[in-house]
């Protein structure tokens, strides 16, 4: 599996129903293990995700232009997950619009291609510093 948009999120982008995700809309990131989650285009909401390994991170300093350099690219400050319990490798994550209710929280992007074995400390995800940053539409 490669990183991907959720098609049902793209549908909502086109319909304009997701709001300004760079504004007050709460966008969160969840760390996951591919052993516990298989990406599927049929997944629309965060209720399809496995339980959080660590507290989901609320993204801040969000832009829709790759930090001013790349229009169409969603970017944000790096995300730090605190005190991630030791265990099997973590190798994927999902970005979603959080409504406070998983069954209505739209999944936006799925990202893999990394692996980190948690040692009980913090894990910081440094987003790519070039296209697609976090994700490009």
């Amino acid at each position, binding site marked *: 599996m490669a990183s991907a948009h959720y098609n049902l999120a793209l549908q909502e982008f086109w319909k304009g129903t997701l709001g300004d995700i760079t504004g007050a809309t709460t966008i969160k990131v969840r760390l996951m293990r591919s052993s516990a989650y298989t990406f599927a285009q049929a997944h629309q909401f965060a209720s399809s995700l496995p339980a959080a390994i660590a507290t989901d991170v*609320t993204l801040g300093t969000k832009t829709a232009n790759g930090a001013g350099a790349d229009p169409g690219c969603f970017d944000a400050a790096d995300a730090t997950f605190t005190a991630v319990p030791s265990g099997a490798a973590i190798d994927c994550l999902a970005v979603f619009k959080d409504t406070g209710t998983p069954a209505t929280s739209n999944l936006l992007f799925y990202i893999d291609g990394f692996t980190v074995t948690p040692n009980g400390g913090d894990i910081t995800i440094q987003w790519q510093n070039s296209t697609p940053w976090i994700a490009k539409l």
Partner: protein
Amino acid sequence: MSTVTMINSVGENAAGSEIELPDEIADLFILRGYADGTLSRDYDPNERAEILGEQQVVGLGG
């Protein structure tokens, strides 16, 4: 309590926000580079090394 400005997004604390935290947590965030602010006290090298020791960083792409 100390006020810090978040650089990284940490848990529910989004980057760019100014938040008030217990001194110990604020100092940890500052020392780890997650936030800007003023330390509540001096930390010796051993303390700093201990605080910094458990971090893991995952760089996505180039």
